[in-house]
Each structure stands twice: as C-alpha cells, then as structure tokens.
C-alpha cells in the first residue's frame, strides 16, 4: 500500500520534472525563431483572439497574449523592466491606461495614422496610449413607466422625482469611478459630491455587482432608471426584446460619458515596429469593424458602421473632455464616493 503511494509520488515527480524541462525547452527557441508579438491584455480572450487571428492573416505577424486584470499586468511590466517579453499593453478604461502611462511602462508613439484617426480627447496628451473603441456609459430606463422627456443628464438622476427609483452598479467598478472622475472634472468636486449623495438617496435597492443584473432589474420593474455601458444592453437585446430604453444625454447637457478600450506600446518593447503596426491595423477598416463589433462597442472611427444592434440605438454626442482626466481624478473620485456612502 505505502510502497504504491511512494511509487506514485516518484512517478509524478519524474513526470513533473520532465514536463518542466520540456516546457522550457520548447518555449525558449519558439520565442527566438519566429519572434511573435507579445501582447498583455486585460480584454478577455474571446474578444481578442479573433482579432489577432485576422491581424496575423493580414500581416503574417504572429501574436501571443497573456490576459489578466489591468493592475497586475502593469505591475508585471514594471517588475520585468527591460526584460519584458511584451510589446503592447491592451486594456479597457482610460483610468487604467492613464495609470500605465503614469507608471512609466508605456512609450510615446509618433504615428500619423493614429493621430489622424483617434480624436485628441480619446488619447493620451503625450501619445502613450490611444482609444480604439468607445464604450458609452449612459442612462437606461423602464419604457413602461418613464417618458424620455423626463431625462436629461447624469446629475438630474439626483433629482427628487427619482426617489426610490434609481439603480446603480457598485462604485468599485472602474466604469463608475471614471464617470464620477469626469463629473468632477466638468462640474467641480463639491457639486459632484452633492450629486452622488443625491444618487444614493434615490436608490431603489442595494447597488448591483454588474451592469447585466442592473438591466435585468429595470426589465423586472424594480428600477425605473439606471446607468450602464451600452454593450451590456446590446448583449441582452441579442437574446430578445426588453422593455428597456437607452437615453443619451444631449450635447447641451454635456453629452454622453464615453470611455475607451485602448492600447499603448510598452516602453521596453521587444518588437516596437510590429507593436505600432498592430495599433495602426486596429484603427484600419478591418481592425475597427472587428474590434468594436465583437463586443458591441462603438468604433473609434466615425466612418466605420457599428454592429446593427448598436446602429439601431441611433447617433449620440460624446462629451469631449479629455479622457485622461478619468485617470488623473480617479483616486479623488473613489474617495468622494466612499465619503458619500456609495458602496
């Protein structure tokens, strides 16, 4: 009995070591021979794999990627320093992109293509990152009880008429942190704090862990209004009709808060030319169509047609305040929400 267990341990150890050697042996030469472009991505695999496949098809450059949350990836880039295998950091939310640039892991990129296509408010002021697709965070409402004429901007959701009717996602999600950061940038800290306190007063129920649950609650009639990223509604609309409407704040009201998913070239990139090529390809026709439509987001290029579901929502005007403020003011926004009791 015991001998059997010992033997089993022995066999496992031998296979373990064998496996390791094999792993490193095959990994090392592969990196040197064909030198694939390495991307660190916080965008999930199923959203990037088809895009990289298309890029490889067009350019012949192979792409390897590691997925993780943005902050661990940034710490990893910092720790790896000059030895990093990565050339591109791809992530969502301007706050994360700003932080990566602030921590010095991204290099400035002088690309006429990118500058021509990506509006300046959707990229870093020193061109260290570029927005590639837009994610509008806007107002959803229950079409059975709310008339769109009752709605205007984010601040108005703090009005008394929404007492016990507003639903929000947790403040721990970076999308809400960016939204509040941008409110601070446009309206100032004190008025924003009053608005957030008003939102909390108006809550219909405890904050939701994600946008999907929030939209389901609107469809169930538990909330009249809420704030979500549009693509979550798009995903649910793919499965069937919902009594949920989208409202875009107008230009006069400050426009829609947009965020980006974007990318930058890593400072010590092993392969900076291929990295730049990938970013430029992503704002090209094929890249844009794939990158935005895979996740029902808005393409950063206005001349590319979005997915039919997205197209059906109609046009909107985005707030044009530079997005890097979402990062600069993020910590301030988190503290403000903590003070206002927004969990």
């Amino acid at each position, binding site marked *: 009995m015991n001998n059997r267990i010992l033997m089993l341990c022995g066999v496992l150890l031998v296979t373990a070591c064998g496996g390791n050697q094999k*792993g490193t042996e095959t990994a090392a030469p592969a990196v040197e021979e064909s030198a694939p472009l390495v991307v660190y991505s916080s965008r999930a695999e199923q959203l990037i794999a088809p895009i990289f496949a298309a890029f490889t098809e067009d350019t012949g450059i192979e792409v390897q990627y590691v997925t993780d949350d943005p902050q661990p990836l940034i710490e990893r880039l910092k720790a790896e320093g000059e030895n990093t295998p990565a050339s591109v950091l791809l992530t969502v939310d301007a706050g994360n992109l700003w932080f990566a640039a602030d921590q010095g892991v991204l290099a400035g990129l002088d690309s006429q293509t990118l500058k021509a296509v990506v509006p300046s408010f959707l990229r870093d002021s020193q061109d260290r990152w570029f927005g590639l697709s837009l994610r509008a965070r806007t107002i959803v409402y229950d079409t059975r009880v709310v008339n769109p004429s009752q709605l205007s901007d984010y601040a108005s959701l703090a009005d008394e008429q929404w007492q016990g009717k507003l639903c929000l996602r947790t403040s721990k999600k970076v999308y809400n942190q960016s939204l509040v950061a941008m409110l601070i940038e446009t309206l100032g800290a004190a008025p924003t704090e009053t608005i957030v306190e008003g939102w909390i007063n108006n809550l219909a129920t405890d904050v939701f862990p994600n946008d999907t649950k929030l939209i389901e609650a609107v469809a169930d009639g538990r909330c009249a209004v809420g704030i979500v990223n549009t693509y979550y509604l798009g995903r649910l609309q793919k499965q069937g009709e919902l009594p949920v409407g989208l409202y875009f704040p107008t230009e006069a009201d400050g426009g829609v808060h947009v965020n980006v998913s974007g990318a930058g070239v890593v400072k010590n990139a092993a392969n900076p030319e291929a990295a730049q090529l990938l970013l430029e390809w992503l704002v090209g026709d094929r890249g844009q169509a794939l990158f935005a439509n895979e996740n029902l987001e808005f393409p950063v290029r206005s001349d590319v047609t979005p997915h039919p579901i997205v197209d059906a929502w109609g046009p909107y005007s985005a707030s044009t305040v530079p997005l890097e403020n979402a990062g600069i003011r993020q910590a301030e926004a988190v503290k403000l929400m903590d003070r206002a009791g927004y969990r």
Partner: protein
Amino acid sequence: MQARLWQLMVVAIALVMALPMIVAVAALGADSAGVWSHIVEYVLPRVTVNTLLLVVGVAVLSLLLGTIAAWLTSVFDFPGQRWFAWCLMLPLALPGYVTAFALSGVFEYSSPLAGALRFWGISLPGVSAGLASTLCLTLTLYPYVFLLARQAFLSQGRRSLEVAQSLGMRQARGMWRVALPFARPWLVAGVSLVIMETLADFGTVKVFNFDTFTTAIYSAWFGLFSLTAALQMSLCLLVLVVAALWLERRARRLRRYTGVGQKDPQHRLPLTGGRRWLATCFCGGLFVIAFLVPVGQLVVWAIDYVQLEWSARYWSYLRASVSLATFAAVFVALLSVLLGFGRRRAPGRTTDSAVQVSTLGYALPGTVLAVGFFVALSGVQDGLTAIGRALGAGDAFVVTLTGTLWVMLLAYAARFLAVGFSPVGSGFERISPRIDDTAEILGLRGVKRLRQVYLPLLTPGIATALLLVFVDVMKELPITLITRPFGWDTLSVRIFQMTTEGEWQRASIPALTIVLCGLIPVMILQRQKSNSRGATN
C-alpha cells in the same frame, strides 16, 4: 549537528515562502499619499465589522456542519452512510465564486424559480449580501472540517468512545467528553483553513458585493492606484491571523496528542427509528444545497452554451489544469513532510516560527500574494544576473525565473502550504515519541527514519494533502493568471475570461469541467481509505 541542518532547511523554506510578505514589509516604509488616512476614516470601520461577522459566521457554521456530518458518517450506521462519507466532500471541488453565482442564479429575483414562485404568490425572502456570502463560503469550505474531523474520528475517536461506553458513558456525552477533545488538533486545523480561506476570499464576496478587508485591499490598489496601501493592509490582515494562531497554540501548548497504534476494525453503531432518517436528512440536505443545486444550475446553463463554448482547446486547458495541480500537489506534500520532519528533528522556537511563517501565505488575498511573489522573484532574477555580470560572465549568465513553471510552483506552494501542512503536521503530532525512541534503539536515523517509520504512519495525511492541494490548485486563479507561461491557460483561467466580461452562464462549461476533475481525486482518496480498511480487517 544533523538537527542543525534540518533547522536550516526549515528556515530556508520559510524564507522562500515569505517572499511576498517581505515585499509587503518593505512597503511599510513607503508613503501611500494620504490613501491610508482616507481608508482608516471611511473604509476600515465598516469592512472590519463585516469581515469579523463573515469570519465568525463561516467558521462557526463550517465547524458545526463539518463536525456533525463527520461524526454521523464515521460513528453511526444509517441509510446512505457509506455514500455520504465521500460525497459530502464533493463541494470542495466547487470554487466559492462558482457556487455563489450558481446559487444566486437559482434564487435571485430575476431567476425562473423566483419568477414561478411569484406567479403563485410566494416571494423568496431577500437575503442580505453578508448572509449570502456567509452561506456560500460555508457551503464550499465546510468540507475542510469534514475531511479532517472524519480522519480524527476514524483513527481515534471510536476506540476511545468504546472505552467511554464500557465505562457507562452515554453516546452524546461520549462525543462531548471524549471524541471532540481528542479530535481537537484536526478540528482546529480544519477551522484554521476555513478562516484563512475566508479572509483571503475575493471572488465570493464580489459576486454579492459584500465589502470586506479583501475588497478594501483591492479597491486601494485598483481604485486608488496604491499598491503600497494594499500591501500595508494585507500586512494588517496577516498580523490578525498570526495573533489568532498564537492564541490557539498557547491554549493547547501543554497538551499532547499521540495515536494508539493500529486502526480499529470496522463496526459502526446502528441508529434507531426516527434518528436514522434524521441523520439521512441532515447529510442529504447538506449535499443537495452545497452540491446538487449549484451543479444542477451549471448543467442547465451549460446545455444552452455548450455549442458556443466547447472546443478542442478544452483538452489543452484540461491538460494544463491537471498537470499544474499534480505538480503543485506533489511539491507541497514534499515540502510539508520536510517541514514536519524538520520540526520533529529540531524542535524549538526558531523551527516553530519558521513553520508558522511558511504557512501564512494562505491568508493573503491571491492577487496580492501573486504580485508580491512576482516582484520579489524579478528582483532576485535581476540581482543574480547582475552578480553574474559583475563576475565577468557577461550576458552568458542570465537567470530566467519569471515565466517558467518553477515560479508557478513556488507561488502555489506559498499559497497552499498551509493546506498541505495541516493534515501532514497533525499526522506528525500523532506519532508517539515512543516510536522515536524505538527507532533510535534500532538505529534508524535521518532520511531512513523518515522513510521507514514516519512515511507509513503519515500516508493518510499525505494523501489528504495531495488531494486538497490538487483541488485547490485546480480552482486557483490569480497566481495562475500572473505566472503562467504562454500556452498554460487552465480551466480557471477560462472561467476568468468569461466572468470578467460578465458572461456567467457561459462560464458554466469550464466550471463544470473543474468539478468533474475534482471528483477524480476525491474518489481515489475514498478508494484508498476503504482499501486500507480492508487490509486491517
């Protein structure tokens, strides 16, 4: 002299395992730019209360459920007893956050069940985030107590119980006065694992949006961009854990637990009448809610998504998961035996503290531990390379640590050594000093004694360690994410890809695959137990 060497080895293991904590201590001096004072004023009061409630709730409930279930299945005979003895361990194969999202899929307001009940005029009671987190964590963590308590009851409780009964003590009293006190090292080991896992949990509380110390650590890092403050808070958490462990050890310092030798032949006490069915209902109910319901929900989702999600790539996820879990389990079991043996050969304060330190990683939130490890090893790697250059080896001597499987194994060990060491360490505690004396007389020393005397006695403990670590690594996420080399995507990484985009239903496919893989080691363990019982018969 030899004792000195063993001590050195234990200290060396502790140093490597403590690397992330060293990074955290180094962060103490750093300034966290006002973040800390903000946290103390607005965040800490609430999360401290929440965390305490959660930990106490989960610990007490797990202790109750685990001990009662273990007691019933090891001492009594009732319908389904043999079956429950192993299937009550199955919830261990479910990651906490998977149980959480599956159960909330069943019971939440917008679920089909709740909708149907509302149609009939019944509304499900609203459950607070705290209660929901407590229940879900209990349902996934009680198996630690169950497993270790059963080991205790099977190996010792029954014989002592027979003595107690022959002296006229009633069954229930026998449990309180004899079996439970004897089982204390196991129960404590089980509950310690539950507590540490609860303190480190992020996935489950995130599903319910319940604010705890861990969520505060993450929001300091992800929201306030201060890894420094996050590390500082993690260190506070560790101080709490160390204090709790120290108190417990002080409380049982003067006690000794030694085994009575051979295993008992098997005869369980029959239960009579209504009690039989009460026992069946208790075990059955626990199994249904902790395993069947969440897995059932996963299966329902999986049917909808299998076409979209299943692909040949699952074989590579599966291979990565199983190989990593196997390597890590063997590595951790090996380290546990070395630590346990070292502690026995070189007893004393230094060895004791070193052993304690090496098992602390379990209470650190996974991502913090993972990043701490990554930062520390990158430092070691740069340092070694620089030394190589300074010595004139130039670029020929470039140490590559990060991005290899070795780093993954070390980080897994730092996280799960507590899990592996619990059963092995309790096993060592139960080996009588008289056995050492006998071995000494027979001239068995060092590795020889380890192999010929200890290992046979430790087999059940080692098997438990292998099983627990295997299942834990299958479920592990943050360390796998940050340290995996290219092409080593596991099943849990696949779950991450889905849940990070809110596609919980689609994540049911990798989740179910993890559960199925987790069943295999549980069954092996069960078979091995019944075989060894057969042998003594």
